[in-house]
């Protein structure tokens, strides 16, 4: 497998990471080296093996439906780059 410049551009777009045209080849080169390492895994026969997504076979815990967290709106908004009227501010998406 080898990722092309177009693949890298598409991946960067999916990951919402801006990438300069001049960087694409260098990024592709490094990622292809990493995938060279990863590819070894694909030849292993894993027929019938159940995937392990987590170290513990635990289900999700349930808790009583009670208020457990205080409202900290002001504290959370204080971390944001831009806020207005108690809301997060982002560039307009609907004209």
């Amino acid at each position: 497998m080898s990722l092309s410049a177009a693949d890298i551009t598409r991946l960067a777009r999916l990951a919402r990471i801006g990438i300069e045209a001049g960087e694409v080849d260098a990024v592709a080169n490094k990622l292809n080296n990493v995938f060279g390492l990863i590819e070894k895994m694909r030849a292993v026969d894993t027929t019938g093996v159940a995937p392990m997504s987590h170290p513990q076979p635990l289900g999700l815990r349930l808790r009583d439906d009670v208020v457990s967290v205080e409202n900290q709106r002001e504290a959370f908004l204080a971390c944001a780059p831009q806020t207005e009227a108690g809301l997060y501010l982002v560039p307009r998406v609907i004209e």
Partner: protein
Amino acid sequence: MIHATLKELTRALAVRELSSRELVSAYLDRIAAVNPTLNAFISVAERESALAAADAADAARAAGQAGLFTGIPLAHKDLFVTRQLPTTCGSKMLANFVSPYDATVVERCQAAGFINLGKTNMDEFAMGSTNESSYFGAVKNPWDVQAVPGGSSGGSAAAVAARMVPVATGTDTGGSIRQPAAFCGITGIKPTYGRVSRYGMVAYASSLDQGGPMAQTAEDCALLLNVMAGFDGRDSTSLDVAAEDFCRDLQQPLTGLKVGLPKEFFAAGLDGDVARVMDETVQQLKQLGCDIVEITLPKTELAIPAYYVIAPAEASSNLSRYDGVRYGHRAAEYRDLNDMYERTRAEGFGAEVKRRILVGTYVLSHGYYDAYYLQAQKIRRLIADDFQAAFAQCDVILGPVAPTPAWNLGEKADDPVQMYLADIYTLSVNLAGLPAMSVPAGLSVQQRPIGVQLIGNYQQEARLLNVAHQFQQVTDWHQRRPAI
């Protein structure tokens, strides 16, 4: 005073040989003296506030209200969120972030009486094995400033090794406590997955991330783990088991203990110094009464590709939260919402973090999920099964932490594949979710520390700490310290 272990400090405070004010003052002086060289801290507590906390601790002790750790300094890896100091994760993305809440680990340490002296440097978002990916610059190894301190908890390891704090917290996703502990000549333990709460511990790969203590000795690790570990309802994967005293078995003799040596851990590629230290450790354990058995972990090499699929996959999902909207960096100029995301993330993340996000995005993308992500999860199962087969033959597993001692700064910085290959002995433990620790066991010819790894079955931390403690009763590697 600053060379004392945590255990010794608890005694000295209890019998009033020392005050917390003297301790805090001495460690802050030490940080001021050596941090400009080592760069182990990203932020350091204000002297005034730290001394005020020390005075309060001394007053509590005078009033008979002190606990074991009241007034003892420590440092937190800079991915445990704190209200008192910024939490950067070694990233430009969070360079100015101050958390509105404290992590569970931070709360627990504070409730036990520890005084936080600062936040330690780390690879950006814990992605790295050398600390070179930190936005705040690499940490230097206190034993040799040309050498890497290991990573990602390199700041915590260097801080303990250089006696800037008696103990520090770290986290381990693929070796990030054990490998820097080995490179800096200190002791560290990665507990069973779920032991230490992940609440307020900034996520890298959630099914692998686990916090743990870093200290001079196994006994100190046990003491700090007693504080850090415990069920937390705010962490959905917290282990809901009864609290235990991790010091309880420290004094047990090792007679008849079966120590397994996985033959795959002693294969080609092991550095001569590391191989020699392994041999010496095996001899030492035999003298302590251990029986050595050869075991096999046949999927060892596959841990590298499996980890470098699973961890980036989880990271690409976890790090999607850094969008420049709710916290962290936001680009100054942008055309529209999408452009804001792309510029914010292009500017805020470093090269290694971007690389792992891109790998993760690829392996989770349509058409590749089964071939990469699902296949990696199946191999993860095979690796975990290998360990269970091995533990049918032995009580603990012994091996190297890393194939070599610390290498030079810059040596592998531009070659991610070489860097990933050096994680071979630590990754499988995280994939399986087992506890494991790093214990200082020798020095290379270049006088760089070498650590050995002890791996236990689930929830067998007390046994690992027992083995390490007994080893430290008959060796002095944990007492050696750098000249700095």
